[in-house]
Structure formats: structure tokens, C-alpha cells
């Protein structure tokens, strides 16, 4: 027992040094003030938290939540069938499926996002193709729109959803399905009562990964959205840099982390409650 606890030392050191201490510093700064040059002044202030409740910043936070949830839902709708297909395919196809999903992610995130610029811009690949085929008369403005941002988000985070669901489905005991079919369950019924509950852990992991990554993202809105909409992370970034208002930026970070944690906890609880009900019903 003692020996195994000793094994945790490196990770605990790492976490406290590079996660807990910086977080505490951020929490500390969020309660301080600043001078007009942007230097931190050691006097207590709740100004940062008060500013957040300005409808302007609340609205931006709401937009961020909506975009993140939308991304998570679309990722789930796209990823589940894909993961299901891969998990039930022959080993050869499984291997290739996983390679095709993972390999693009060996390329730098920014480069992948800029690739979409090349595809979507007015003189880009998609518009040129559509013009050539004759389906449109003049280029469609696809870039620098909300749709482009959503597309970029979904594209970048799909593997975070596919892989956990794939793992869950892959580990599932397939004999349960045979049993269900022997007992007269339709394929849909078997899916609903066996496959779906068994893959719930994968969905949960995937959803949390996608939601957290999306809500903290700020480059996609800049590159594909033309910086025309702001997410809460854009605001946090600008408070630490251009606006030189660290206490407000820190307060936003604290609120952001806290609400994300609460949302994830609520989500987890809701999923578990459903799981139990399904379990009891059986």
C-alpha cells in the first residue's frame, strides 16, 4: 500500500506545481486591483466579478455555452454511427478506421484549421469547384461565418468523441446481442437496451472532452470566424494582453472553470441517474 502510494509522488508534484499553484495564483489575482499601466495592486477588490454580470459579458458567456453544446451534440451525432461502424467491422477495417481518424491529428492544429481557409474562401477549392460545375454563378461567402466556426470546431474535436465511444463499444460483450435476439428482441430494441447503455461511459467521456475543449477554444473563431464573434476565452485572452486588466481576466477564468465543473457534475449525475433507472427496469 505504502509503496504504491509512493508511485503517485511524481504526478502529484507535477500537478501541484503546474496546475494547483497556477490556479491559486489566478484565484488570488482575481480578488486584486490594478493600476492604469496594468500592474497588479495588492488591494482587495471584487470589481472583476462585478464586471462579469454586465449583460455584455453574460451574453458572450451564453453564446459560448450555446456554441460548445451545439458542437458537442453535432460531434455526438456524427461520431456515434462512425464509432459503431468501426467497432463492428472486421479487424482490418477497424485498424484503417482508427488510422484515418488519428493520423490527421498528428498535424498541427493550426495548420489543419488554416487548411479549411484554403477550402472555404471565395477563391478556394469548394467555390472553384462549384463554379466550374456550374451550380453557382458567383462564389458563396462561406468563410468568416458562424457556420464556418461550427464546422471548424466539430472537425477538430470529432476524434475526442469517436475514440471513447469506440473503446466502449469495442469492449462490449457481443454475446448479449445474440441473447437478446434469441429472446425475440428486435435489432432496435437490442440497441436501445443493450448497446446504448453499454456505450454510455464512452459518450460521457467524449461529451466532456469535446465540451471542455470547445468552450476553451479561441483561435477557431479568429481564423474561420474572422474574429467577428467573441468566445469567453477571447475575452480572457484580451484582458490579459491588450486590455491589461489581469484581475478581470482572472475573475473570468475562475467563473469559467467553476461553471464548467458544475455543468460536468450535473451532466454526470443525470447520466448516472438514467443508468440506474435502466438498470432497475431490467
Amino acid at each position, binding site marked *: 500500500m505504502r509503496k504504491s502510494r509512493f508511485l503517485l509522488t511524481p504526478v502529484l508534484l507535477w500537478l501541484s506545481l503546474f496546475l494547483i499553484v497556477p490556479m491559486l495564483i489566478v484565484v488570488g489575482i482575481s480578488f486584486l486591483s490594478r493600476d492604469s499601466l496594468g500592474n497588479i495592486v495588492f488591494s482587495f477588490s471584487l470589481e472583476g466579478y462585478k464586471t462579469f454580470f454586465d449583460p455584455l459579458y453574460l451574453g458572450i458567456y451564453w453564446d459560448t455555452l450555446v456554441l460548445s453544446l451545439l458542437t458537442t451534440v453535432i460531434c455526438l451525432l456524427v461520431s456515434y454511427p462512425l464509432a459503431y461502424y468501426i467497432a463492428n467491422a472486421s479487424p482490418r477495417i477497424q485498424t484503417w478506421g482508427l488510422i484515418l481518424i488519428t493520423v490527421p491529428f498528428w498535424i498541427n492544429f493550426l495548420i489543419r484549421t488554416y487548411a479549411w481557409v484554403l477550402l472555404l474562401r471565395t477563391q478556394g477549392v469548394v467555390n472553384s469547384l462549384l463554379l466550374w460545375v456550374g451550380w453557382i454563378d458567383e462564389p458563396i461567402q462561406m468563410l468568416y461565418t458562424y457556420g464556418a466556426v461550427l464546422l471548424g470546431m466539430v472537425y477538430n474535436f470529432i476524434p475526442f468523441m469517436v475514440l471513447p465511444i469506440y473503446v466502449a463499444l469495442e469492449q462490449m460483450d457481443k454475446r448479449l446481442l445474440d441473447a437478446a435476439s434469441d429472446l425475440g428482441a428486435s435489432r432496435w430494441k437490442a440497441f436501445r437496451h443493450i448497446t446504448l447503455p453499454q456505450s454510455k461511459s464512452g459518450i460521457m467521456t467524449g461529451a466532456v472532452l469535446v465540451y471542455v475543449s470547445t468552450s476553451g477554444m479561441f483561435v477557431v473563431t479568429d481564423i474561420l470566424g474572422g474574429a467577428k464573434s467573441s468566445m469567453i476565452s477571447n475575452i480572457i485572452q484580451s484582458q490579459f494582453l491588450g*486590455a491589461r486588466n489581469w484581475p478581470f481576466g482572472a475573475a473570468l477564468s475562475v467563473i469559467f472553470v467553476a461553471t464548467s465543473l458544475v455543468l460536468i457534475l450535473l451532466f454526470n449525475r443525470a447520466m448516472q441517474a438514467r443508468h440506474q433507472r435502466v438498470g432497475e427496469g431490467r
Partner: protein
Amino acid sequence: MNKSRWTRLLMAGMVAVLSVGLLAACGSDKETLHIYSWADNFDPEVLKDFEEKFDVKVTYDNYANNEDLLAKIKAGGSGYDLIQPSDYMVKTMIESELLEPLEMNNIPNFVNITDTFKDPSYDPGNKYSIVYTSGVTGIAYNKKYVKDEIKSWGDLWNPEYKGKVLLLDDNREMIGMALKKQGKSNSSKDEAEIIAASDELKTLLPNVLAFDTDNIKQKMIQEEGWIATVWSGDAAFIAAENPDVAYVVPEEGATIFSDNYAIPKGAKNKELAEKFINFMLEPEVSAKNYEFIGYSNPNTKAMEFHSEEYRANTMINLTEEELRRTEWLDNVGDSLSIYDRLWTELKSGR
């Protein structure tokens, strides 16, 4: 099983790709000058010439905006010997005591700098900085799509350019532009004036394709946007790639900016940094360097070494008359939070 081996291999690949970035190169024992500046801000050959002449090593890291630079220098221990803050940032850094005073005896070539850029308002007496390059934020437009003659900031509001206008992603620059349009100072601290300017900018939003500072050049070259607020040096770069693009300093006046040489407090190789500044101000070296970077050269003695092409370029060399219409951005102190809030409102469409 076959596939789990593959999965492990894929994961290992991901980890490997991530860790490559963490591997740092090792240095040598030669004296080393650590430069922290904008991307592509020097001719690499000129840096090499300096290394050979003085038998030293030069490292060159990049930042994307003055605020990144400030954050890094403020944090301390950055290890840089030479930085290139813009005008207002020089002032901020002096006020925050982040710069070393320059030893002018080590920089005799300072006399080569044109009087226009000596003794600037942001650093009286050049105690902490020497100008490196300068430019003016004006309007670049593509003559293929923009048929009217452009001469005023108001032309950006023309409904014909709906969804084709590009703006700098910078609250001081853009609200400053609207202030200029209304005949005010670009660094107004009067809340009513700033709000009026921001309100007028809001009416420009339907025309705006995107806000961008770093890649606005590419968007103009690729003809994504037809008309844009750009820095004169960037306009020269765009026009070199796309000859249809013209540039104008609007009649209401515009913002002038400069990038400067400065030495951060506690620099380890201060003397070497001064040697470097002096070397860069030698007429021939200077001409070679500015030919490459394509920005304006404040070195009067270097003009004779410049190409005909460079000297004839009106986007690089602005006229006295154009420069008279310009104004430096000044620090606005606590009013910065008004600029920031209005800019956030503007960009989020609220």
C-alpha cells in the same frame, strides 16, 4: 490482438509528435545576442553578417503583438538583450521601468537617423529607444473591385463594399480611426467622443468581412477583401504580390506608428545589443536590411545605397505632406478600459 497493437502505435505516434516540440536546442559558448522581435523583421543575411563580423551568435524569437512582448518582459527572466516595441509601448515600458537607458557613445551611427524621428514624443531625447521603422495606418484597396477614387475613411462605409471590408483586430487602431474620421484625436480620453466614434464604427459592421491583424495581408492578396485598413509597409508587401492593390493616407488624417530598438532591464549583453544597433545603422548594412524587409528606412545616409525601385515606392516612402496628417497613438491610461469594453461590444454585435 492486431488492432490493439495498432491503437498503441497510434497513441505512441501522437505522444512522439507532442514531445518533439519540447526538445530545445543546445547553445554554444560564443557570446550570444538574444533578439525578441516581430516575425520577418530582419534580413537573415544581415544577421549572419553581424555574427561573422563580431564572432558572436544571434538568436531571434518572435512575438505577434506589443502586449505579448510586454507580458513576457514584465514576467522577468526572459533573457532577451534587444526588443522592438512600438511607439506607445516604448512609453509604457519606460513608465513601468522595464527598459535600460541606451549608452549613446556605443551608438555613434545614431546621427544617421532623420530628424523627423529623433527625439520622439514617446521617448524625449531618445534616452531608451531608437526608431527602427515607421509607417502609417491607411486604406489599401483593390482597383479591380473598387472603381471609385478612395480618399476618405468614409469610403469604407460605401454600401457597395458590403461584406468586403477588412479591419485591423485592434481596439486602439480602429476606434482611433473613427475618432480621426470625426476630426478628433486618435487618443481621445473623452468618454463621449470615444462612444460617438464606436457608435459610428457599429454602422460599418454590415460591410465588415473580418477583423485581422496578422493575416490581413494574405486576405488582400487573395482578394478575399476589396478594401482594408492596413499599415503602409504591409500595403507595400501586398502590392508587390498583387499589383492591383493601391494605398492611400486618408484626408482626415491617420495614425503613425514606429517600431524601435530598445534594451530590456537586466539584459545580460547590453553592450553587444548596442553594438548591434550601431551595426544596423551603418548605411550599407541598413540599405541591405530594409530592401529585404520592405519597410521605410529612417537612415538618411542609407538612401544612396537603396535601389531605384525602393526609393520610388510611395507606400514605403510617404511624403512630407502625408506625414503631416498623422498622429501618434498616446497612452490613454484608465480610458483603455472604455476602449476595450466598446470594442468587445462592437465585435460581439451587442
